[in-house]
């Protein structure tokens, strides 16, 4: 049986459904990241959000970015953060307030910000907007190593610097101590 172009009954396309589900999962878990009390669960919710975003990148036709999203954000950053969480959680710490006193104003500010960005995005004429275009992996690699060789090198230097400094700071004791 052929799959119809649109979802039966609702009449929206499958692509839209996919997008909506992914967006809902991403935003929902992002909300959990910033509201959950237990920081380990926050970290897990963040991984879900990153994963959903990778899905959106696929929908957007940028598979390489999606792959990098999985590698970098889930594979490296999220794991690093969870690791740090485990190291810094005192087991016997009393239950503390999770939020600053200004949480309510912050929430209002964030809602205003979201509405503002949404309105701005829809009010702006984006010029030559077309149908979605997929990005070829070959083309991307070629760009990265030709036109964008300088940024590429700079990013390497940046990571090197971060690693050197990170190791120094995270080492248990200074060499001379």
């Amino acid at each position, binding site marked *: 049986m052929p799959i119809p172009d649109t979802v039966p009954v609702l009449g929206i396309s499958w692509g839209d459904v996919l997008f909506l589900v992914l967006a809902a999962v991403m935003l929902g878990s992002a909300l959990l990241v910033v509201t959950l009390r237990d920081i380990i669960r926050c970290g897990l919710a963040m991984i879900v959000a990153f994963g959903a975003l990778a899905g959106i990148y696929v929908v957007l036709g940028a598979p390489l970015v999606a792959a990098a999203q999985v590698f970098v954000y889930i594979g490296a950053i999220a794991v690093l953060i969870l690791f740090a969480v485990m190291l810094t959680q005192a087991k016997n710490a009393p239950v503390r307030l999770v939020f600053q006193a200004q949480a309510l104003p912050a929430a209002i500010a964030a809602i205003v910000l979201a509405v503002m960005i949404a*309105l701005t995005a829809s*009010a702006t004429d984006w010029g030559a907007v077309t149908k979605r275009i997929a990005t070829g992996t070959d083309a991307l690699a070629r760009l990265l190593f030709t036109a964008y060789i300088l940024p590429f090198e700079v990013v390497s230097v940046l990571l090197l610097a971060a690693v050197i400094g990170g190791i120094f700071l995270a080492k248990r004791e200074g060499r001379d101590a």
Partner: protein
Amino acid sequence: MTWSDLTVIAPFAAVVVVAALVILADIVKPGNRHLALGVVLAGLAIVGLLTLWTGQAPGTAFGGMYKVDNLTTFLDVIFVAIVALSCLFAPDYLEPRGLPIAEFAAILVFALGGAMLVAASADLLVLFLGLELMVIPGYMLAGYHKRDALSTEGAVKYFLLGSFSSAIFLFGLAYVWGLTGSTRIADVAARVGEIVAGQATLSPGLAMGLAFLTTGVAFKMAAVPFHYWTPDAYQGSPTPVTGYLSVGPKVGAFAVVLRVFAEALLPLRQEWLIVIFVLAALTMTLGNLVALTQDNVKRMLAYSSIAHTGYMLVGLAAYAAGVIGGLEGLLFYGVAYTFMNLGAFAVIAALQKRPGVSSRLETFAGLGRREPVLGILMVLFLLSLTGIPPTAGFFAKAYVILAAVQAGGWLTVLAVIAVLNAAAAAFYYLRVIVYMYMRDPTGEPAPVAHGALLRLGLGITAVMTVILGLFPGLLLPSVSSAAQAIGVAIR
């Protein structure tokens, strides 16, 4: 990548090599301070020479992403000077606290690379990466005294707010990029110019991008009301780092401003002029008012550095109003500020050579008698920061004020706000002099011997502070040509 690309980018490449060599030297001979310092100072000298050499032949590289013009060279030389001086001042402070110098120097040199990239960027992506390469080492340096609670506390605050502002800046950048269709600064400027010339109203997306960019940059240069990370980060950091942080990333942030606002978004200057005007007035006034109430000299200088951001913004506002002198004034101010502020922090660092000495005002009591030379130098730097002639700080203030007066109209009001602020600032700068010369010390600590490098560095900053005050004409041609590099479009 071609051979010519490599020659144009030689200074940046040299910076990376120097950083790597410092680390290597430390691996070969661990903990050898002399070797590390020798490598880094010699390396910086070479970087400086390469900068001047490439500056002889302005050009672009990497398909127009990297640009060397007179402004690049001018800023690069300042950055090299800042980093070299910081390396001179640091050992006396780090050594007694058991902190290694090699890592310090290497991280600092990485930051130099970032700053140089910012100054040389002809592309917003390179600019952003340069900015990150400049500030991320800053976070690490702020927490460099990692066993000290204050240092790490300052670092974590600096890091969190810095990253937050980076995200904001980047979001703005994304919108500007989406609407202008290019990351090349020249293309962005052309596209924005078309929009402005076409009488089309500024699209909401571009306006929002602009707003985010401004906010992000305002964070980076600690303009009020985005300044609140500064005092803790500055007070907590090891003093030589504070000196560096108060100068390096600040001049770097202005380099970002020059490349983004003064170059890419120049056609929109009427729009951002108002914002800069308000930021400048707020920044000067609030920075000074809060500085008045501080009794920790490091924290006081942190707030005062906020105020100095405000004075520099006056120059930027004048430039936005169509006076190239504003840009020149801003650049001159950057140089003067570099030497006088680094000098002031170096004196504090020298006083704190013995671990445990605080930077509170009491530490300075009777300094004029205890350490006459440090006392006199501190007076010089403080007078320069106040803007008393004949010091570099005076001419710098006069320059931006002249530009504001030249722009006329509301900017004259800004000039008046600036001088009233300068008068108010005299109060807290002079209070340090009061403590040094008019109060008796609270107990006579044994004198400390100061290292040769520190003395050399203090000598350089002092001499520059005086020379730039007495003969500012020496610097004016380079300031002019640097300003011309991006200011040709104006009037």
